[in-house]
């Protein structure tokens, strides 16, 4: 077994071990903090192994038989260690570890038993996500895909006694299931056409042109539907903003850095197959760009800091998908990695802010920079990275995406993405100016931020800056090194867009030179965006109209047809019994009559008819 496979199995096994220990030893789980320390140290060890694996940088693949079948196994499991999974392993381990560390501070007021449950789910999530990343076959990926969905459900509903959280958990679960339905049908269609789930075999067939192209388009579209659900693409993006009901570290880990990017990762992993269906790629690009723009407009009018970040995640996922659609999956993947780092930073920073002021509403914050500069600075670094300011990593990866989309001559998606880049800078700095620099409201926000949270934020801020420097020096830590320089006009354009967005936000919310209510984007579509373009209502109506209508029909059939027949049968039996009991008069002489005339009738029958 190659060393990298051993490393990968070690990375995969540690969180699972931690989950098993926490699951099977209730005494440890109910201790809360101790459970957290077990889970966090397992993640720390996994991170070390993942880093060692990264240094090793060896490609390897190992496959084992799983489901037996006639003539070779029907399904296999395995691990793939390649330039796609190696950095992803590091990202997942790093963010998981930091989030678990951060949670020790963020959730320190939770009851010990709940905290133990939280860490058990966190370990299970880390295991599932790593398994998804390492999966060598579609089927294996699907299993882990569902596991991360389950963990997402469990962790969104961590405060399950709150109705909003319980509703959000169920909504997230069902909306993503809608996409997963397509995913599993697509996988089975691929399997019935080729007889294998393995990526390597499928890619080889794709290279040799041995794949039947006729049914491939539909199968790949169905597979893509899974990514639409998981990566919150239009129109299934509606679950992600509601998922913010979960604890903030969960939002940072699952709904920003790792799980929601699983869809993008899957499209990247299966890209040689998607590449065979160019029409589908164009479609993916359009949907991605449209999602990015739609979510960005919604973020501009949101006042809940976590929801702004959630919409920005949807928007950035749209960017990554658009890159894949434009035939530049590497750019999308790069953005996935950088976005994972700075979006986790933003969420964890937002967690610190929420911890300090006890509210999510940005209009009830203000003056936070002066109150806590050490919370403010990492948050602003993350914001600059997201807005795409040189030389932070967001600038480089976003520029690469724009370049890819422009290169593919997708003009309208390119314009949508450019507008989104402008809006991104605007809405992020809207949050920064309102929450950190506006005049403080009410009394001083004195709630102390625990040290672990602070340290994690600063560390992530430092990582963001270092990544930017790495891009600047062209070391290519995250890239394969074949980075062609973007044309100068594009560099200038993305900088102008980002700076323009920041300036507009500054003029509007800091100088008050522009009335926010009169900005065209806010006035024209602001109302619609505030109502989320009616999509939630539409889905609700769809659910009520079709699903409930269908359920009522089934209910009617069950109640009146199935039950009706049984009720009629039982009523008939009762009626017949009631009629027949009358012949039981209880008088002995009646019975003698019966016997006497019965015998007589027998005699007559024997005499006359035999």
């Amino acid at each position, binding site marked *: 077994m190659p060393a990298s496979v051993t490393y990968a199995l070690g990375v995969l096994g540690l969180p699972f071990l931690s989950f098993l220990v926490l699951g099977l030893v209730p005494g440890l789980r109910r201790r809360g903090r101790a459970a957290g320390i077990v889970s966090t140290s397992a993640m720390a060890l996994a991170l070390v192994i993942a880093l060692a694996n990264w240094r090793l940088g060896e490609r390897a693949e190992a496959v084992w038989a799983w489901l037996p079948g006639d003539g070779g196994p029907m399904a296999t499991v395995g691990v793939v260690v390649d330039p796609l999974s190696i950095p992803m392993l590091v990202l997942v381990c790093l963010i998981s570890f930091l989030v678990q560390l951060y949670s020790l501070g963020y959730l320190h007021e939770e009851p010990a038993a709940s905290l133990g449950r939280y860490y058990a789910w966190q370990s299970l999530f880390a295991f599932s996500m790593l398994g998804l990343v390492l999966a060598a076959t579609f089927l294996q990926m699907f299993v882990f895909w569902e596991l991360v969905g389950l963990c997402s459900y469990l962790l969104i509903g961590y405060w399950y006694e709150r109705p909003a959280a319980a509703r959000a958990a169920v909504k997230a679960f069902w909306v993503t299931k809608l996409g997963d339905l397509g995913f599993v049908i697509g996988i089975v269609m691929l399997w019935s056409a080729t007889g294998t789930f393995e990526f390597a075999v499928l890619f080889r067939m794709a290279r040799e042109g041995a794949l039947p192209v006729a049914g491939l388009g539909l199968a790949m579209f169905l597979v893509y539907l899974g990514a639409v659900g998981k990566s919150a693409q239009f129109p299934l993006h509606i679950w992600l903003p509601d998922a913010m009901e979960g604890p903030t570290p969960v939002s940072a880990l699952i709904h920003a850095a790792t799980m929601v990017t699983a869809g993008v990762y899957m499209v990247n992993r299966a890209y040689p197959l998607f590449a065979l269906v160019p029409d589908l790629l164009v479609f993916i690009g359009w949907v991605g760009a449209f999602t990015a723009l739609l979510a960005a407009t919604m973020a501009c009018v949101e006042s809940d800091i976590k929801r702004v970040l959630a919409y920005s995640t949807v928007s950035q996922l749209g960017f990554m998908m658009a890159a894949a659609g434009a035939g530049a999956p590497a750019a999308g993947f790069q953005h996935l990695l950088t976005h994972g780092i700075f979006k986790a930073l933003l969420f964890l920073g937002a967690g610190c802010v929420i911890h300090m002021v006890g509210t999510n509403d940005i209009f009830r914050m203000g003056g936070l920079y002066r109150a806590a500069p050490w919370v403010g600075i990492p948050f602003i670094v993350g914001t600059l990275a997201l807005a795409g300011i040189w030389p932070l990593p967001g600038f480089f990866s976003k520029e690469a995406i724009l370049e890819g989309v422009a290169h593919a001559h997708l003009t309208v998606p390119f314009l949508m993405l450019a507008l989104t880049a402008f809006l991104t800078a605007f809405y992020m700095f809207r949050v920064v100016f309102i929450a950190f620099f506006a005049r403080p409201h009410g009394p001083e926000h004195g709630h102390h931020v625990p040290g672990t949270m602070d340290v994690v934020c600063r560390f992530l801020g430092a990582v963001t800056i270092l990544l930017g420097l790495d891009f600047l020096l062209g070391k290519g830590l995250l890239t394969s090194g074949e980075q062609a320089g973007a044309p100068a006009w594009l560099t200038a354009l993305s900088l102008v867009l980002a700076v323009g967005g920041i300036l507009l936000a500054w003029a509007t919310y800091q100088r008050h030179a522009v009335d926010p209510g009169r900005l065209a984007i806010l006035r024209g579509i602001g109302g619609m965006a505030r109502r989320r373009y009616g999509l939630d209502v539409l889905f609700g109506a769809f659910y009520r109209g079709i699903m409930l209508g269908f359920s009522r029909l089934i209910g009617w059939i069950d109640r009146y047809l199935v039950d009706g027949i049984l009720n009629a049968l039982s009523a008939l039996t009762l009626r017949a019994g009631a009629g027949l*009991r*009358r*012949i*039981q*008069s*209880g*008088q*002995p*002489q009646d019975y*003698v*009559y019966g016997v*006497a005339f019965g015998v007589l009738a027998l005699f007559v029958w024997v005499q006359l008819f035999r």
Partner: protein
Amino acid sequence: MSLHAYLVLAALVFVIGLYGVLTRRNAVGILLGIELMLNAVNINLVAFARFHGDVAGLIFTLFTIAITVAEVAVGLAIVIVIFRVRKTIDADHLDLLRG
């Protein structure tokens, strides 16, 4: 007298007994009707024994008489017990088993 005449007599006695069983309202009367029916059978048995020269019929008759006595003893005892409990032996009122 031929065997036929005995058989007709036995049939008449049997039918009279049956009529009594079916029409009497008094439980003792019903028992009497049953006695008549049993004795009609006895007449048949004795007549067949006499005309066919077979002693088995006589032995059967002896058995029947003995059993009849036992049956009447049990039946009358039941009637007495019913009378003690229900204060009547009218068959029309003894309908506890009505469905």
